[in-house]
């Protein structure tokens, strides 16, 4: 019994008791803030990754459009355009879309069962670039002047729009992230002030027995660091779980068409290892931010009362 008591005394109770810190509320708040931050960060990562992938895909392709011109033979013009494209440096392949492929492209506008042989519609040549940086697009554009009715579309305007949209989403996400961080800091400040006010007796006693402000701040900081870590872990794990569930739902629950559409926008809706590392890195950041904020608030409080 004596040994048991002695062992128990070896582990001195914390000077600031766990229950005296508004722990549960703050824990929940930090968990929610971490979750929101992680979801925002994950969303930003997904959009950015998708935008880069879209841009790269679109950038590897240019399209030659050949409009029907009276007196010109379309099939001949198509062959010429394909030849000119294939002779251009940096081009991997060039292929004229068949009438059937053309019909599928305009089906959304003109409906099904259309007989394109009765209508003069522009035809397309899809040109795949082996290396978009080295491809001599200017030469191809110049060469195509020899084909009546031909024009070259590099999708530059669309890519520009895509990049602008993705950039706007990323900046908005980062702004939301910054606001969440500010809100978290404010919440920690209020919680710390409340804790200090409700633990004034402990602070006074520590002062009377000769504790330095640094010692007292350290005692409180330890509590807030623990709360920040726990809240961060809970929020971060919930966010990773959220992305996992949404990714599985897109793959299995959403209708095929909707899933495919989401897939186009967000890939497989998977964060990837870098996204998970990003969310995991937020946990110590949130914990450190909580500890630092509380320490500064405690130091300020102690300076004010001493």
């Amino acid at each position: 019994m004596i040994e048991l008591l002695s062992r128990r005394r070896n582990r001195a109770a914390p000077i600031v008791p766990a229950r005296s810190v508004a722990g549960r509320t703050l824990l929940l708040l930090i968990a929610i803030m971490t979750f929101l931050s992680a979801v925002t960060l994950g969303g930003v990562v997904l959009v950015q990754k998708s935008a880069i992938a879209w841009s790269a895909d679109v950038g590897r392709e240019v399209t030659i459009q050949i409009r029907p011109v009276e007196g010109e033979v379309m099939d001949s013009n198509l062959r010429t355009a394909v030849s000119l494209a294939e002779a251009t440096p940096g081009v991997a392949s060039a292929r004229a879309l068949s009438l059937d492929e053309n019909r599928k492209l305009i089906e959304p506008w003109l409906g099904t069962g259309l007989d394109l042989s009765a209508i003069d519609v522009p035809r397309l040549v899809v040109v795949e670039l082996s290396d978009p940086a080295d491809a001599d697009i200017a030469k191809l554009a110049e060469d195509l002047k020899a084909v009546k009715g031909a024009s070259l579309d590099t999708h530059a305007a669309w890519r520009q729009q895509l990049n602008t949209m993705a950039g706007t989403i990323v900046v908005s996400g980062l702004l939301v992230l910054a606001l969440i961080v500010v809100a978290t800091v404010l919440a920690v400040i209020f919680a710390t002030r409340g804790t200090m006010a409700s633990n004034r007796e402990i602070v006074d006693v520590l002062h009377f027995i000769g504790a330095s402000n640094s010692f007292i701040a350290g005692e409180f900081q330890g509590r807030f660091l623990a709360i920040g870590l726990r809240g961060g872990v809970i929020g971060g794990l919930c966010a990773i779980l959220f992305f996992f569930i949404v990714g599985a739902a897109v793959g299995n629950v959403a209708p095929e068409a909707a899933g495919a559409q989401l897939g186009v926008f967000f890939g497989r809706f998977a964060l990837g290892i870098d996204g998970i590392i990003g969310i995991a890195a937020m946990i110590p950041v949130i914990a450190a931010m909580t500890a630092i904020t509380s320490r500064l608030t405690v130091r300020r409080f102690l300076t004010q009362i001493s």
Partner: protein
Amino acid sequence: MMPLPLIRRESALIEFTDVGLRYGEGPEILKDLSFRVEPGTFHFLTGPSGSGKTSLLRLLLLSLKPTRGRITMFGQDVSRLDRDRLLQMRRHIGIVFQEFRLLDHLTTFENVALPLRVLGQPEADYRSNVEELLTWVGLGTRMDAHPPLLSGGEKQRAAIARAVIARPELLLADEPTGNVDPDLSERLVHLFAELNRSGTTIILATHELPLLDKFDYPRMVLNGGRVAIHD
């Protein structure tokens, strides 16, 4: 405990010269206080309620600065000390309150050991000292009890033990007998007397005149903000 630097042992432990104190723009609570307290002495501090006993103790505890005058403690002018030096000096002063001010979530042992824990000492170094002191004040069997389970007398003895565990040179007591019965009050003063015999300078504030009459120690009497010392 670290020795105070530049201390002049031949000087008084405490010396007040024309000290005045007021809170904000209010009237002067303490006026022209001039007195000396030699090391190793025992003084009662008495006076009617509102005479400024607690304010004087707060000046002695270095938690207040005088509005005017000079306070010298441990041979140093306290007005010239920076925050760190004040903190260092405060560690040479023990304080006992009427309302005990023990931390309820800590055991009696942990409460008494708190000043040493604050100084960064490992428990293995101080455990036997704390246990010995608690036994000396009659709490040897109550070390693991939390304050809410202690009687008033036990709480005050624990508070006294906490005040002296770090071997302060000066022990201040603010109405330490205010919450205990007369018989226990007398025993507590005997305990302070024992501490004084071991070399600790003691200033004990009380307004219980019958208690003062039982002990032959000098009295510092505060009245109307002024002090008179009766040997």
